[in-house]
C-alpha cells in the first residue's frame, strides 16, 4: 500500500496546486450534454444556450423574480415602443455597453450599437450559414427575407445592403418595420440567437466554414476562459461590463422565498460570482455522485435522477438536513400526443376515425406515464398552452378523460370488432395496426412500452418504430409519422408559440400531426393578430376544444424543472425561460478550496 499512499499524496499535492491563485468566487455547474458551437446564429440546443446567454446579450431579457415572466430591458434602455397596429417597434440602446477586448478590435474598446444587432440578424439569413434560427424573423421584417433570396441567387450575402425594415435612426436607436401585426416581437428579441455579435470578430475568425464559433466575443457579464471541448468550460467575469446592481421585486407567488432572496441580494453588484466552472457529464450516476460529493454547486436534477432527491415533489429529508435547496418550476413546455390526420388508418374527420382517435386518447393513462416514465416530474396538462405562458387557462376542463371501458364501448359501436385472436379489425374487416414512433433511446423505449399497454387495453395491435431523431424529423415534415409523443419547449412564453403547432399553414414545418381544419386556421390567424387578452384567450379555448373533439391531439403534461443548490448558494431561484441565473446569485463558501 506504500505505492498507493504515494500516489494519493501526489494527487493531493497536485489538487492543492491551483488553489493558491483563486480569490474569486467560483460556481461549479454541470451540463448533462456536450456544448456545441458558441455562435449565437448556429445554436440549436439549450445546453449551448447556457453559455451563449452568459457571453452575449440580447436587447431584452426577463425579470429575474417576476412570475408570470415579465420582459425586461437587456442592452435596450427600455421596453420597445410598439405602434398601435403592432407593426412598428422603436428600440433604444443603453449607452456604454462594450464588447470584451479582442484582437479583432485592434486593442481598442468597441461600443455596442444597433448596427451590431442588424448585422447579427442579417447573418441568420445568410445561406452559407444555414442558420437553424432564421425562422425567428422569417417573413416578419420588411426586406430582410429578400436579402437572403438575393444571396441565394448571387451566391454572396451582401451585408452592406440596407434593409428597409431595419431602420437605424442613430447608433443607439432602431426602428423595426414588420410585415404584419406581431405583439410578440419583444419576446423573440429576448431569444439568444438574436444577440449581438461584432462584425469585426466574425470577419476575423471566419464565418460558416470558419472558426468564429470558437471565439465568442460578446458584451455579456461573462467571457470565455478555459475551454476543453465537450468537457470543461470556464467563464470569467467581464470586468468591463456596464455597472449593474441587483434590484428585483419579489413576485406575488414567490412568497417568503422571494423575500429572502431580495433581502440577501438587493443592492449587490452584478455579478457576485466571478468565475463559473462548467463540466460536461453525460452519465446520470456520475452527475449525481458529483453533486452529492460536493463537486458541484448548482445541479440540474433531470429525469431519472429526480426520485433520488425528491419525494412527492419535496426535497428528501436527508438532503434538506444538509441544507440543500430545491428550486422547482414548470418548464414552459407542452408534451402532447398527436395522431396523423393524413394517415390512412388514423387520419381524417370521418366519425369512425374521430371515434378511433378519441378512444385511443381515452385509453391512455397519462398519470401513469407521469408516474412511471417521468418519475412524477411533470404536471398533468389539459390545455395546449402550459402554465407560465401567456394564454394558459388553469380552469380548462378536459373532454378526453381516462376511461378505457368507455373507449372500448366506443370502438365496439363504430364497428372495430374484435377478432378471434382478441385483436380488433377496421370496420371493413381489414387488420388494424397502429404505428407509434419514438426516439431510439431509453425514454423512447419507456414511452413505447406505455403506449403498447394503452393499445393492448383496446385490443389494438401496436407497432413500435424507433428511429434516430433526424429521421423522425424528416418523416414528420413529410407527414409520415402515424402517432408520436411530441415535446415543444417555448421559444417565447406566449400561447401563439404553442397554437401554431396545429396551424394548417405549418404542415411540413412543425404541425407534425398534419392537422388542418378551416375553423381552427381561421381562429389561429385571428388570434395571431391580437394582443394578449381575454378575447384571444376565448379563441384559444375554442381551438383547444376543437382539437380534443376531433381527437387530433391530446395535451399531456409539462415537465418540472428541478434545480438543486448547495447550502452555500445564495439568492437562487430557477427562471422558467432563462437558461441560467448565474449573474443574479451569490455564493458563500467557507472552505474556499
Amino acid at each position, binding site marked *: 500500500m506504500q505505492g498507493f499512499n504515494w500516489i494519493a499524496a501526489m494527487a493531493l499535492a497536485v489538487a492543492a496546486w491551483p488553489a493558491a491563485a483563486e480569490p474569486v468566487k467560483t460556481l461549479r455547474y454541470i451540463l448533462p450534454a*456536450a456544448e456545441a458551437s458558441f*455562435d449565437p446564429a448556429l445554436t440549436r440546443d439549450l445546453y449551448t444556450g447556457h453559455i451563449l446567454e452568459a457571453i452575449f446579450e440580447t436587447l431584452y431579457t426577463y425579470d429575474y423574480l417576476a412570475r408570470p415572466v415579465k420582459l425586461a430591458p437587456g442592452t435596450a434602455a427600455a421596453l420597445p415602443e410598439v405602434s398601435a397596429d403592432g407593426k412598428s417597434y422603436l428600440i433604444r440602446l443603453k449607452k456604454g455597453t462594450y464588447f470584451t477586448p479582442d484582437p479583432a478590435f485592434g486593442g481598442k474598446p468597441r461600443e455596442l450599437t444597433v448596427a451590431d444587432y442588424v448585422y447579427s440578424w442579417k447573418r441568420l439569413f445568410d445561406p452559407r450559414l444555414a442558420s437553424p434560427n432564421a425562422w425567428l424573423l422569417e417573413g416578419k421584417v420588411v426586406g430582410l427575407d429578400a436579402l437572403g433570396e438575393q444571396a441565394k441567387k448571387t451566391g454572396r450575402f451582401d451585408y452592406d445592403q440596407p434593409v428597409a425594415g431595419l431602420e437605424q435612426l442613430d447608433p443607439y436607436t432602431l426602428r423595426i418595420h414588420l410585415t404584419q401585426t406581431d405583439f410578440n416581437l419583444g419576446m423573440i428579441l429576448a431569444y439568444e440567437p438574436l444577440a449581438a455579435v461584432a462584425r469585426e470578430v466574425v470577419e476575423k475568425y471566419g464565418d460558416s466554414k470558419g472558426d468564429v464559433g470558437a471565439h465568442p466575443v460578446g458584451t455579456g457579464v461573462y467571457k470565455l476562459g478555459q475551454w*476543453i*471541448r465537450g468537457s470543461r468550460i470556464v467563464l470569467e467575469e467581464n470586468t468591463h461590463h456596464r455597472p449593474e446592481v441587483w434590484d428585483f421585486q419579489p413576485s406575488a407567488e414567490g412568497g417568503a422565498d422571494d423575500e429572502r432572496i431580495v433581502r440577501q441580494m438587493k443592492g449587490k453588484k452584478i455579478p457576485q460570482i466571478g468565475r463559473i466552472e462548467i463540466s460536461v457529464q*453525460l*452519465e446520470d450516476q456520475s452527475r449525481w455522485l458529483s453533486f452529492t460529493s460536493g463537486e458541484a454547486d448548482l445541479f440540474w436534477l433531470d429525469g431519472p435522477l429526480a426520485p433520488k432527491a425528491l419525494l412527492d415533489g419535496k426535497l428528501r429529508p436527508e438532503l434538506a438536513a444538509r441544507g440543500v435547496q430545491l428550486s422547482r418550476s414548470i418548464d414552459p413546455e407542452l408534451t402532447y400526443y398527436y395522431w396523423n390526420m393524413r394517415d390512412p388508418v388514423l387520419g381524417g374527420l370521418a366519425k369512425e376515425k374521430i371515434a378511433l382517435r378519441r378512444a385511443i386518447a381515452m385509453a391512455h393513462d397519462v398519470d401513469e406515464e407521469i408516474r412511471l416514465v417521468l418519475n412524477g416530474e411533470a404536471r398533468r396538462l389539459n390545455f395546449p398552452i402550459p402554465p407560465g405562458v401567456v394564454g394558459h387557462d388553469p380552469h380548462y376542463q378536459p373532454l378526453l378523460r381516462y376511461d378505457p371501458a368507455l373507449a372500448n364501448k366506443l370502438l365496439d359501436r363504430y364497428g372495430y370488432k374484435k377478432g378471434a385472436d382478441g385483436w380488433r379489425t377496421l370496420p371493413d374487416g381489414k387488420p388494424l395496426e397502429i404505428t407509434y414512433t419514438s426516439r431510439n433511446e431509453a425514454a423512447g423505449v419507456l414511452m413505447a412500452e406505455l403506449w403498447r399497454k394503452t393499445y393492448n387495453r383496446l385490443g389494438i395491435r401496436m407497432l413500435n418504430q424507433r428511429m434516430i431523431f*433526424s429521421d423522425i*424529423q424528416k418523416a414528420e415534415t413529410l407527414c409520415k409519422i402515424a402517432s408520436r409523443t411530441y415535446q415543444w419547449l417555448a421559444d417565447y412564453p406566449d400561447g401563439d408559440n404553442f397554437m401554431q403547432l396545429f396551424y394548417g399553414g405549418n404542415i411540413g414545418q412543425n404541425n407534425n400531426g398534419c392537422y388542418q381544419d378551416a375553423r381552427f386556421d381561421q381562429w389561429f390567424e385571428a388570434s395571431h393578430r391580437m394582443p394578449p387578452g381575454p378575447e384571444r384567450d376565448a379563441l384559444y379555448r375554442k381551438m383547444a376544444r376543437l382539437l380534443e373533439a376531433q381527437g387530433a391531439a391530446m395535451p399531456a403534461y409539462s415537465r418540472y424543472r428541478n434545480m438543486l443548490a448547495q447550502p452555500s448558494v445564495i439568492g437562487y431561484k430557477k427562471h422558467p425561460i432563462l437558461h441560467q441565473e448565474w449573474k443574479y446569485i451569490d455564493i458563500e463558501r467557507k472552505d474556499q478550496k
Partner: protein
Amino acid sequence: MFAYIVRRLWQMLPTMLGVVLLVFFLFNWVGGDPAYILAGKMANAESIANIRRQLGVDQPYYVQLWIFIQQIASFDFGLSWATGEPVANIIATRLGPSLTVLIPLTVLETVIGIALALAVAFVRGSLTDRVVMIACTVGMSVSILIYIIVFQYGLAYKLGWFPVQGWGGSFWENLLRYSTLPIVIGLAVSIAPTLRLFRSFVLDEAGQDYVRTARAKGLSERRVMWVHVLRNAAIPIITHVMSNLPALLIGAFLLERFFGIPGIGREVILAVERSDFPVIKAITVYVAAATMLFNLLTDLMYQAVDPRVQLT
C-alpha cells in the same frame, strides 16, 4: 528495411480504399439525412434544401466520394456538423486524454498480466491454477457497465478514494488524480482476459523442447520462465497488446463517459448521438489507418524480438 516499410505501406492502399468505400457506403448511402438535424425546430423544405447544398450531400454519389477521398488525403475533414469545430482539431485534442488513460492502463495491464501469467504457469495444473482461472472466467462474465457503476459508487463516492469524475488542465493532475480510478477499473476489467490469454501463451511456450533443454542445463525454474519462456512468449504478447491499442481507443468509451474524460471514445459516442457524420467518418478512417500502422509497427518489433523474422 526501408524497402520493406515502403512495400508494406504500398500494400495498405487497397485495404485503405476498402475502408474508405465501406465508410462512404455506410454514411453517404445508408445513413440518414443530416439536414433535418441541422435545420432546427422550424424546418421547412427550403431551408433543408439550403443545408443539403451547404453540406454537399445533394451532389451525385461519385462526386461525394471524390470529395471524401480528397478530404482523407488532405487530412481535412472539414467541420463537425454539430459543433462547427474542425474535425482535425477534434481528433488532435481528444487523443491526449484518451492516451493519458490508455497508455498507463496498457502498460500496467501488460506488466501485471505477464507477472501473473508466469506466476500461474509456475503452478500450472494445480488447484491454485484452476481456481485462478475460474475466478478469471467469473470476472470476465460480469459486464463492464456493472464494474464501472459499482466501482464509481463504491470507491469514489462511498470511500472517497478518488474523485467521482472530472478532467483538469494539467497533464499530471489528469494522470495522477483523474485517471487513477478509470485505470483501476480498466485493469479490473481487462486483467482477467489478459491473464488467461497470456497464460496460454506462456504455457504454449513452456511445452516447447527448448524449455526442456534449459532445464537440462540446470537453470532455475525462475530463469527458465523469465528468460527463456518469456522472451518467446513476448511475440504473441506484443501482437496482442499492439493490435488491441487502436481498438481500445474507441473501446474505452464507457470509462470516458462515466468519468468525464474528453477522449476519442466519448467523442465517437457523442457524434453517433448527434449523427455528426464527418466526425465518425474521420475517426473511423484514422483509426483504421492507425490499426494498419500498428500492425506494421508490430511486425517491425518482431524483428527486434524474434531473430527468425526476416523483413524483406
